[in-house]
Structures are given as C-alpha cells and as structure tokens.
C-alpha cells in the first residue's frame, strides 16, 4: 500500500489490522505511555484549505509517536500564489519528508499528488471526493461501541452529495455488510456513481428524506452538516436544515446501544442536549482521529506496532480521558 487516497486502497483485512493497531496505541494517544515508534520520521502537512481536527490530529499522531511535522502554513503566503503547480509543490515536499498528509479544494488532488510523489500520500479530503482517514476513525468508533462493524444498520444523514466523509464511509460500511439508510434532502442526495458502486457491492440501500423514520432501526446515526452556501436562498436553507437535525427527545425510539456520530464541526444539526445522552459519540470520535492516524502512518511507513503496556482490549474503552 503506497498511499491512501480512497477506501479502495485498503482491503477489509487491512482496515481491521489498522483498527487493531489503533486499539493497542490508545495509551500512547492518551499520553499514558511513551512509544517513539516514528522517531526520525517527518510528516509534511499540506493543507491547501482550512482544517482544524484533521490537520491537528495528524500532527498529534506524529508527535505522540516521536516523529516530527512540517506544515505548509498559510497558503496565501506560499509559492502557490506565485502560480506553482500542485505537481511541483508535491515534488518539492516529497524530497523533504517521509510521508505527506494533504487536503485540497480540488477533487482528485490526492490521486494527482500520489502520481507525482515517491512518498506515501494520505488523503485528508479532496474537494467533494474522499476522506478515508476520517472513515478509519469512524469505523474505529463504531467498533468500540458495537464490538463489530459487520452487519449494522447505519443511517447517513444530511449533505450526502458534497459531504466527502460519507462518500468514503459508505463504501467501507457496505464492504462490511452494513445496510445503509441515506437520509438527505433531494438536492443533496448521494452522487449516482457512488450509489452505483455501492449497489455493485451488493448493498442494501434505502434513500429517504425522513430522519425520524430511520431512528428506531438504526445502530448508528451519522449526522453531517448542511452548508448554507449549497442553497440559493436563506429560506430554503432554513427549511431544509430545520428538518435534518436531532434533539435528545427525537432519540426516544432509538435502540439503547445506538450511537450518534458527526465528523464535526456541527452547527445546528445536533442539539447540545444530545451531548449528555448515552448515544452521543462525536467527541470520542474526534479523539479517535489521533489513534487511528498513528496506526495508519506507522503502517504506511512499514513500521510494525508492538504490544503497548496498558493497552486495553475492551471494545468500548476509547474516549477522551
């Protein structure tokens, strides 16, 4: 595996091995154990558009394992404003570092970079394309809660058209035999090529605009943010955004073990009163970005993750400490 551009770059066995490595690295991610596995290694963090969690969690993952990070910094002060191509930027950074994590506003930029570089590329989001490292942390969070990622009922809710996190996640879930309910306004439905791919994998898919109907049977409700700029007028946005949001009272018919996830940042799609329910997992999910990226970087650099003293084996042991 040279790079991680889409979930197609990982087999199911690869995914499970990364999640197992991540499980072992939990004490290191929490700062309870020191494991300088990546000492002497350098990550290039190339974020051509804003990121908080993804960029910081890559940096944290690298530093928790004793490695170091160089950042692209502010795009407006880089050579990109002088007209440098993505190819040249990648070829230049390729010579400096051992691995590159990147986010770019253009779809396909990570594949383009991977074709330009010698070192592994980690796709941290390419336009409305893919976000596979988010998918790994999502799968890790689901496995923590349910003990498995196989055969679950998952409702993906909100902006399924432009939301790259759900594009990558849906592929992975279907490969593990999950049933998907895709809940979105008609204008923000999952792109047809992704639906085609999912159906070719034998997926059971329901497309719906009714969030309430999806709650009782769901094992996971994965909320996403509906962005105001996707709508021609404010009234239409308010009408749609008002329908695709969750409050604690809405969760009354949910299964006891059902979890609510969100890639964050949230705006109004999950009310604060959900945070204190047994269903909320989005902050644990954000923490899990560190541990899964630790495991992924190690794997792409060919470094085996050893047993770590203090690592738990419980499937529900994660979360911020």
């Amino acid at each position, binding site marked *: 595996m040279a790079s991680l551009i889409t979930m197609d770059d990982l087999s199911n066995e690869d995914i499970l091995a990364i999640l197992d490595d991540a499980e072992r690295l939990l004490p290191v991610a929490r700062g309870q154990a020191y494991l300088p596995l990546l000492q002497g290694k350098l990550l290039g963090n190339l974020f051509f558009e804003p990121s908080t969690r993804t960029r910081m969690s890559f940096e944290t993952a690298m530093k928790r394992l004793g490695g170091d990070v160089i950042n692209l910094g502010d795009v407006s002060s880089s050579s990109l404003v002088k*007209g440098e*191509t993505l*190819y040249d930027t990648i070829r230049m950074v390729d010579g400096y570092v051992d691995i590159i994590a990147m986010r770019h506003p*253009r*779809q*396909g930029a990570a*594949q383009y970079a991977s*074709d330009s570089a010698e070192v592994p590329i980690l796709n941290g989001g390419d336009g409305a*394309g893919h976000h596979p490292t988010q998918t790994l942390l999502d799968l890790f969070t689901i496995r923590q809660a349910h003990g498995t990622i196989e055969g679950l009922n998952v409702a993906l809710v909100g902006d399924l058209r432009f939301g790259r996190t759900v594009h990558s996640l849906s592929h992975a879930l279907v490969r593990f035999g999950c049933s998907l309910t895709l809940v979105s306004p008609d204008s923000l439905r999952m792109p047809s090529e992704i639906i085609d791919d999912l159906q070719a994998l034998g997926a059971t898919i329901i497309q719906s605009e009714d969030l309430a109907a999806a709650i009782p049977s769901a094992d996971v409700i994965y909320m996403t943010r509906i962005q105001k700029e996707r709508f021609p007028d404010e009234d239409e946005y308010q009408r749609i955004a008002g329908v695709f949001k969750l409050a604690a009272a809405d969760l009354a018919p949910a299964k006891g073990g059902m979890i609510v996830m969100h890639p964050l940042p949230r705006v109004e799609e999950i009310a604060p009163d959900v945070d204190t329910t047994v269903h909320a997992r989005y902050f644990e999910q954000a923490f899990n970005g560190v541990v899964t990226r630790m495991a992924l970087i190690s794997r792409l650099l060919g470094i085996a993750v050893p047993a770590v003293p203090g690592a738990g084996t419980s499937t529900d042991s994660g979360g911020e400490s």
Partner: protein
Amino acid sequence: MSNEMSMRRVTAINNGTVIDHIPAGCAITVLKMLGVDGGRATPVTLAMNVPSKKMGLKDIVKIEDREISQSDLDKLALVAPEASVSIIRAYSVAEKLQVNLGEDVVNVAACTFANCASHGPREPLPHRLVVHGREPLRLRCHYCGREQDMDSIVDNLL
C-alpha cells in the same frame, strides 16, 4: 440491404478516409471530434441512419483528402468504438485501421468535471480517463473518480 448497397448510398472518394459503422446519429459528433467543419475546401460525405445488419442502423462518413491519424482513432474510440476505418488511395482501400478502446484513455479528453485537480493550469500529468463500462461506454476520471458526461466530452477533447 447489403453493406455494399449501404456504402453505395454515398459517393466514392479518391483519397481520404471512410469511417463506417458509426452508431446511428453520431456522425456529426464524429466530424466535430475530428475537427472537420465547414471551412474545408474538399468534399465531406455523410450518411445517417443507414440500415446495417450488424448495428440495425448506422452512420457513415467519408472525408476526402484526409487520412486520419492514431490520435484521431483514439478520439473516435470515445464515440464509435466499433467503427471500421479505411484509408482510401486512388479509389482503393489502401489500409484498414482498428479503433481500439483500451482500459485507459490517456490525453485524449480532459475530465468533464470542472473542479477536478487535473484542470490546474500548467499541471503536467496526463489527462486520464478510465473505462468503467463499454455498452454503453462509461468513463471515469482517474484522478477525481467522477463519471464523465458523455454528451459534453466532445467539447473536452485535447
């Protein structure tokens, strides 16, 4: 109607190219792809919806004084992958060319998705479309993965 009779519907050419077995209704697109327009001084003959044993209906194009190149054949593969191409010299078939649609279509057309990374100015890597289905032809961009809009791909030819 036999193929021979079909071919007789359009005038024989002295030198140039005959493209047969174009899907019915696609002849104008083929001419556009090959850059054949009203500015030419030599004859271009076009027959549409001609009965064909193989295809039911087909189009035929004859272009006088132009022998199409390999890069033209690569473009042709996007619209008429089953086309038969003959190079005519002195009223005889001098060469028969094969339209081959491989797994990848490289530097023939740019991705039809406007926000694809391959559209960056001066980016040096080749434009690359991957064949995702053949009947009907479906292409996806190697970089962004988007399904190509086959109605507008002619406008994106390189």
